[in-house]
């Protein structure tokens, strides 16, 4: 049974705008993610998906607009990645979630190290927890992979597993997955999709970004379609079939 959350929306955005110089990356974006909702965010390359995610996760602030997290308005002036962590928002970025040459245990805790008062890392403790996350929480069965392995020894699916396990351990209320399956074999895609179901079962919310419509359709409760920095449609799953959704998306395919 999902735990009952005492807020309506995990995140809500009002009239978000983002300019890079004179170029508008996002224009008047309004959207919300329910407390226990899986939202599929879809759109062509350059539609503004990554910009939107970076704003939610505090990588950079929007030019204008309001952000509500768990129904509370966030003062944007001091909103940053650390703040987002504290509010339980975790992102798994495409190819940007792990330091390639670093040990896995470092990858779990960088930015949130367990330290003594002088800032020295408690290595044994971190390794112990890293092992627990890998083997108990996400059921890691990589051959010859341990907490001391380097991230570049892992396959694409294993990397997603590590990043997702990290998000779970740090009690994320909203987990954002950015193209989690783009480089994976079919078998590994199933693993990732199963995990997204686990997010739902545990009562958490999720934003799932992918080009693969069938994956998005399978797991999402709601679809938000972004095009050239604007939201062109918000559709509930029970209002649309996969076929209709694909046809709809083709209208917004600007590339060749």
């Amino acid at each position, binding site marked *: 049974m999902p735990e009952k959350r005492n807020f309506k929306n995990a995140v809500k955005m009002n009239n978000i705008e983002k300019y890079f110089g004179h170029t508008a990356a996002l224009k008047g974006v309004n959207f919300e993610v329910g407390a226990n909702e899986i939202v599929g965010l879809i759109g062509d390359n350059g539609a503004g998906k990554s910009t939107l995610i970076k704003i939610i*996760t505090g*990588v950079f602030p929007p030019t204008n607009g309001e952000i509500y997290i768990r129904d509370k308005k966030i003062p944007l002036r001091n909103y*940053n*990645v*650390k703040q987002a*962590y504290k509010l339980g928002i975790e*992102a798994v*970025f495409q190819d*940007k*979630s*792990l*330091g*390639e*040459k*670093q040990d896995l245990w*470092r990858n779990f805790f*960088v*930015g*949130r*190290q367990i*330290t003594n008062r*002088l*800032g*020295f*890392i408690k*290595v044994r403790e971190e390794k112990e927890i890293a092992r627990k996350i890998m083997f108990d929480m996400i059921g890691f069965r990589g051959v010859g992979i341990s907490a001391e392995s*380097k991230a*570049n020894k892992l396959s694409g699916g294993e990397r997603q597993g590590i990043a997702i396990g990290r998000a779970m351990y740090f009690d994320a209320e909203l987990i954002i997955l950015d193209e989690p399956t783009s480089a994976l074999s079919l078998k590994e895609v199933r693993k990732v999709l199963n995990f997204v179901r686990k997010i739902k079962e545990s009562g958490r919310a999720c934003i799932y970004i992918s080009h693969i419509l069938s994956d998005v359709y399978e797991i999402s409760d709601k679809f938000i379609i972004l095009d050239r920095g604007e939201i062109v449609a918000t559709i509930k799953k029970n209002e649309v079939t996969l076929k209709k959704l694909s046809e709809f998306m083709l209208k917004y395919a600007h590339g060749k």
Partner: protein
Amino acid sequence: MKHLKVSIAKLVKIEGLTITSVFFALMIVFVITAPRVFTGYRIYMSFLQTVPPLLILALGLTLVITAGEMDLSFSAIIAFSGFVFCYIFRTFGTPWLAFILALSSGALVGFINGWLVAKVGIPSIMATLAAQFFWNGLTILLSGGLSWNIKEIRPYFIHTLFVGRIGGLIPAQSLWGIAVAVFLWFILNRHTFGEHILFIGDNEEVAKVMGVNVTATKIKLFVFMGVISAFAGVLLTLEMINFWTTQGAGLLLPTMAAVFIGGTSITGGYGTIIGSFFGAYIVGSLEAGVVASGIGGYWTRLVTGLVMAASVSLNIILNKEKGEELKEKIKESIFIKKGGKRSSSLKKGI
């Protein structure tokens, strides 16, 4: 055969083992080629006396290169901090104030470097090259281009503490070199600051996404490097009881050689303090070793080049991970030529 491979792979993982072996192999070669010099203790005492400034610089530079940055200004800091030290000591006669202000001058230079790199966004190789000219120029200007003797400092405690002879034999600066090495090993491998350096050097985007304050860390790093360089400058000035305007100039390339011989990766994300430690002693002992072996001082640079090429190759061949990383880099650069996406590390222009 397979067992051998596995055990070699395990051995290579021990930090700095390759370069430590190279160091001892080199010493054995010198003992054979120049037995009269290298079986006595004097030559080793001489290394312990002359290498520490180079060693301390190499240790600091290891952190900078691990972060994927470069510092070319430390040779100017050596001169500038040495000048500050001499000037304050001669004017006020207070060695500790001179010491503190010398370190602060290094911190100031480092802060400006860090600010230019992290805030303004100038690639570190350019910012610190400019800094090298500027601070060297300022030192020459302020000192009137003269060298200053400070033999009055000999009886002071600061002289004994930093460059005295322990038991009338072992140069104190060699112990300071070891202390800095131990301290920096813990900073790089066990402290959050070091972990942030590793991740920034590995991939700045990842570091940012994981909540590392990249700008602040980089500024801190350059300040750190500035202070360490100034410390090396004070040691050098105290040892020579003399300041001269070009006193750091000869240290720039040997320091970089020491770091790379040690096995620190130019691509960032991996650095070895133990490697740099022995790298510095290799670079610092080559000249004496080559001369004592009787093949003449003209050969020194040539041999340094050979040793550097050999150690770097050895490191890459033995460490398969690094070999793969190199392949990745080559692939990446081909990818860029084809007009693909630029990676963040290459954007910085290194």
